[in-house]
């Protein structure tokens, strides 16, 4: 407890840095998964391939990805861009499947009637299919946000500034309180972002509440 009280500034700084790495990754994973999920949902033949490829991304251990990625995209190992890129890939591993599932779950009859009413492909996707897929998309995004925030800590092993540094520093110096504070901060941050996503979802999809209260 003494350590935590004496180092509140440090914890706050690490938390902010943590957020600055996680949020872009979460947003990018969501945005980039949309076209891929659309493709896999639209063209059934591609679905198994796309979903398996992205699902397997999740099996790549995160630590070496942080090392290998810079050699491919040409950034430094400790750059924020490297961490964000790696986390975006992990986010997409979950989000592409969620997006595909969400779009497939839209009733084909609704899609047909939208076409019959004269919607073109893109406007039908944006104004009809996307809102209807919204609740499932949100569920997927919530999993992505929680797992991303938790995964950022691994980059602490490389010395990137985030809450993961509290783990490595606490382990090396044998300060249990520091590691516990790090875990607590990660969980609280994940819960806070999750709550924020739920609120955004309620504001953007007021109709979804009626579905949940069946």
């Amino acid at each position, binding site marked *: 407890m003494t350590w935590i009280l004496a180092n509140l500034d440090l914890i706050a700084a690490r938390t902010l840095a943590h957020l600055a790495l996680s949020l872009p990754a979460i947003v990018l994973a969501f945005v980039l998964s949309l076209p891929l999920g659309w493709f896999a949902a639209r063209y059934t033949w591609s679905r198994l391939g796309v979903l*398996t490829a992205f*699902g*397997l991304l*999740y*099996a*790549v*251990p*995160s*630590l*070496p*990805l942080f*090392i*290998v990625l810079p*050699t491919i995209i040409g950034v430094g190992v400790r750059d924020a861009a490297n961490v964000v890129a790696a986390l975006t890939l992990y986010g997409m591993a979950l989000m592409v499947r969620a997006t595909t*599932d969400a779009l*497939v779950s839209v009733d084909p009859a609704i899609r047909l009637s939208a076409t019959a009413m004269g919607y073109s492909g893109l406007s039908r996707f944006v104004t009809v299919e996307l809102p209807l897929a919204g609740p499932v998309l949100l569920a997927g995004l919530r*999993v992505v946000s*929680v*797992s991303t*925030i*938790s*995964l950022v*800590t*691994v980059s*602490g*092993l*490389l010395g990137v500034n985030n*809450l*993961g540094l509290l*783990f*490595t520093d*606490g*382990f090396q110096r*044998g300060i*249990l309180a520091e*590691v*516990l504070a*790090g*875990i607590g901060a*990660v*969980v609280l941050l*994940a*819960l806070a972002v*999750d709550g924020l996503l739920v609120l955004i979802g309620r504001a953007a999809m007021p109709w979804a509440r009626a579905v949940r209260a069946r």
Partner: protein
Amino acid sequence: MNLFAQAIAWLTDPANQGGPDGIWTRSLEHVWYTVIAVVLACLVAIPLGYLVGHTGRGRGLVVVSSGAARALPSLGVVTVAGLILGIGLTAPMIALILLAIPSILAGAYAGLEAIDRQTIDAARAVGMSEWQILTRVEMPLGLPLLLGGVRSAVLQVVATATLAAYVGSGGLGRPMFLGLKTQDYAQMLAASLVVVVLALVLEGAFELIERLAQRRFAPVPSTST
């Protein structure tokens, strides 16, 4: 791409293959950790998931706690357990079991929940006891979703078991952390390639098991994905 060539060279070098520190021993250790963690997680999560799925009670609690468990950073759990329990296998095992439980738990109760209520009512109407309903109706019908949950747990544990080496255990994390400390990135990549191959093999095995289970227990073409 040069790094990949170096990694392959590292893997094919006989000096890195045999012996107690060789890639084969480390791979076996890695698979062993994964199996133990997933089996222990199953022992906790499956009965709990069946209890929730069968009675329909405590669903909210399970959803909230597995959500919180997903937020737990594995590196932090490994570190805390390592500081408290010391160097060894117990510390990473705790982290891996905690990692595996949410997916398996969700698979177990979602499998039971997805069953048509009429099927269960019919089972009750023909005079089955609650135990018989669970073992003869709900467990077979819920098997595909349960297997899906175990499958994603295995995938996560295989990738995360590398962290075991952070607190002094073996597994494929050993060459990975050695590579990190000595800046031998080819060695890191080599070890992670082996992890990916392991994951692919396990995925293939699960695909087979799921197909067999599907054929055995779901004579009607399943509409679930």
